[in-house]
């Protein structure tokens, strides 16, 4: 692939790039409770004009190809939101580190 194509198409811009052999995996499932909370949280951040939909989408694009390939849909969303909140100076890395430790301990999880 020429480097020019990388400039023209950002990672999420995949319209038309698929192969016919990659069949659509058609199935139904309910979201996990945390996924729905994550969705709702991002909606609330949009209402407050803290993180809008387009910023969130760009945030999922800015996590790098490896992470983009390995994380699930809402895993990308919460990572994107966390990065944006850090960039905007609304949260600090220390506060997130301390809080995740505290939450993990609450559920007897070792991170």
């Amino acid at each position, binding site marked *: 692939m020429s480097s020019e194509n990388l400039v023209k198409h950002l990672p*999420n*811009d*995949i*319209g*038309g*790039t*698929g*192969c*016919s052999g*990659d*069949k*659509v*995996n*058609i*199935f*139904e*499932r309910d*979201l*996990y*409770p*945390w996924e*729905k*909370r994550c*969705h*709702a*949280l991002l*909606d*609330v*951040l*949009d*209402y*407050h004009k*803290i993180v*809008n*939909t*387009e910023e969130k*989408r760009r945030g*999922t694009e800015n996590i790098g190809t490896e992470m983009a390939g390995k*994380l*699930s*849909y*809402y895993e990308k969303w*919460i*990572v994107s*939101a*966390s990065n944006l*909140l850090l960039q905007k100076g*609304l*949260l600090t890395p220390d*506060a*997130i580190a301390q*809080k*995740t430790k*505290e*939450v*993990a301990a609450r*559920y*007897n*999880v070792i*991170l």
Partner: protein
Amino acid sequence: MSKNHHHDHAHDHTPIIIQEKPGYYEILEISVRELLIEKGLIGADEVRKQIELLDSRSPALGSKLVVKAWLEPEFRSRLLSNGNAAAEEMGITIYDNTEFTVLEDTEKLHYVIVCTLCSCYPRPILGLPPDWYKSKEYRSRTVREPRAVLAEFGTLIPDDVEVLVQDSTASQRYMVLPLRPSGTESFSEEELEALVTRDTMIGVSIPKINQN
């Protein structure tokens, strides 16, 4: 919930319950939410209220819009010219400030909706999208070979019908107004609504009589 939390007061809420041990990303979600509440950037009840709003939205709302459009030509005109206003008329608020556009199928044209960049979808009308709508395969292939993708959903569009793929954006959301199947002249509103599934409003399926 504690025993002294009486429910004779006027607030509705869905308790947030964690059943299994959370993984890393769930812990991150809990942490970010709690930090934002502690800092006063969002209200303590807002996420729960938004979950209730999300839960109140389902394709049944879209089905009602479609059937009303089938039965009332004047409503169909209003729905096609201004989706937001027509939805509001039916008591459906477009809570996410997006522009809602309804695309009408004809005997010679069939629409399919996709979001190639991510997962934009008319959530206030249809609820949250299915996983396949957000998948790389659906997003990357639909604009190039819509008929092949539709065939995977069991939908075969005759060659003399044009297939038009509409891509969505963060501010522009679309829904298909499918054709009313012939042979439904005597159907009640409820019977018609049952034919209008979520997938017929995304355009990967068409309304059919005798569905399972």
